[in-house]
């Protein structure tokens, strides 16, 4: 049993094969692999007896259930109104030039992916971003680079 097979198997064993457990199981794979590969979707479909197209269709409904490869750290910069008003574009530029990739891309070392996302609910502390599940607010072009430098330098 390879890692992914075990991961899916364990998640299904933990939550059960009923349809209402699909989201926690998909989220569990994301937690480990950062995205849902074709293989992972097929395995989940098989273990839960849900058509694979249905699992895929469900996953693609949710912004956080990526079906494309992502880096270890997924950066999601809020692009909704207040963040846009308070300098989201400068934050993106700072991240892009620091990581040398564009929005939607992943660094070669597969460590970072930059995405934009809809309202994160930090409008009073805009601009905001998520790095995986962690929130960073009131960003400036300098502070965002400091934050990402720490991620880059951790082992």
């Amino acid at each position, binding site marked *: 049993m390879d890692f992914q097979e075990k991961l899916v198997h364990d998640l299904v064993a933990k939550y059960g094969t009923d349809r209402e457990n699909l989201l926690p199981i998909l989220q569990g794979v994301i937690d480990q692999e950062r995205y849902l590969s074709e293989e992972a979707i097929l395995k989940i479909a098989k273990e839960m007896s849900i058509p694979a197209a249905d699992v895929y269709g469900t996953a693609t409904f949710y912004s956080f259930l990526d079906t494309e490869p992502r880096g270890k750290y997924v950066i999601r910069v809020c692009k909704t*109104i207040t963040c846009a008003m308070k300098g989201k574009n400068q934050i993106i530029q700072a991240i892009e030039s620091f990581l040398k990739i564009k929005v939607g891309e992943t660094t070669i070392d597969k460590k970072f992916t930059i995405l934009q996302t809809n309202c994160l*609910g930090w409008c*009073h502390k805009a601009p905001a971003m998520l790095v995986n599940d962690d929130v960073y607010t009131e960003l400036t072009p300098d502070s965002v680079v400091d934050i990402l430098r720490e991620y880059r330098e951790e082992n």
Partner: protein
Amino acid sequence: MTTTKKQLHRIDLIFKNEQDCKEILRNALARSNQEVINEMVNSGLKGRGGAGFPTGLKWKLTAEQKVDEKFVICNADEGEPGTFKDREILTRVPHKVLSGMAVCAKIIGARKGYIYLRGEYKFLVPNLKKELRRFHDILDELGLDFRVEIFMGSGAYICGEESALFESMEGKRGEPRNKPPFPTEIGYLNKPTVINNVETLAHSYTILKYGAKKFRELGVKDSRGSKVFSVSGDTPIPGIYELELGMSVQDFVDDFGDGDTKAVQVGGASGFLVPRKRFGKTSIGYQGKLTGISLPTGGSMMIFNSSRSMYNVLNNYLDFFEEESCGQCTPCRVGCQQLLKGIKAVKRGEKPASYLDKLLKLTDTMKLTAKCGLGQSVANSFSSIVENFREEMIY
């Protein structure tokens, strides 16, 4: 700011640090179901997620269903742009929300409750779990057979719509259902379900503690009590504020504006834009019919000063809806694309200014025919912005 203006009535009920949760629960659980329902109905509390359905009635209708299994769900899928009060409530006073859920559960006969938490708030989970353990111990002590679990969303605005939320919890795409049937009859897993916003449940705690009468004293007719507002945009003091319902937008701007306020968006991206000339004529509350004189809101108040282009604001909103529409129904899915492409075409001069009138007619259709409440409101910002700032759309 002038000194003669009327000060807004700031309320300190929701966030008041009260550690008497066990007592409140014990008393509430000792009362008859009918008594508690009456208390809730008399309080005049209406749903604080934005739609404003009377909470007591919702509990009553669900209690009347003769079915073994029922659910209580706390809607913490706070996705409306400009809204962030539920996160604050769950961070600071989660026990009040949980107490509301427990009392509701006892009344309707539910043994299971869920908090549907938006994926963006996952960092709240460790604390919430700690709080849940503590709360479950209290329930055991009081002998109430009720357990609450956290269900995580995964990034889909539409799941804040209650029936879409059920679909999502059932492991499906979060597409709103046809109504009727309503959740009080057929909700999560097709069982009768009370689904309340975080803040609504927290208010129910206040009502249980202080009584319906005290709650009713706040606010105005049709809009009783206080409300937690999320204030953002061009304001020196962005943040969370509990205020009395029924305030005028003018009073709000006087308190929160930066002195150069041009417009306020009430109710988030799916809400209405109020231009300066109507600040004094518009109040905040829930009226039976949308007249434009009183606007409902889930609490989002976004302030724009004169440096902001209303075209950019609308463009941002439409961008949001074009992506976040669930996509199943025609008026919302295609309508949003048309509105977005339409304002761009007018701005670029590819379509004449009169095209805006065609789009305004289209917004009427979207409001009349979309499948869900959110689909019916996605065009609100378009119509209120285009009607009031038409010149900014063109030049």
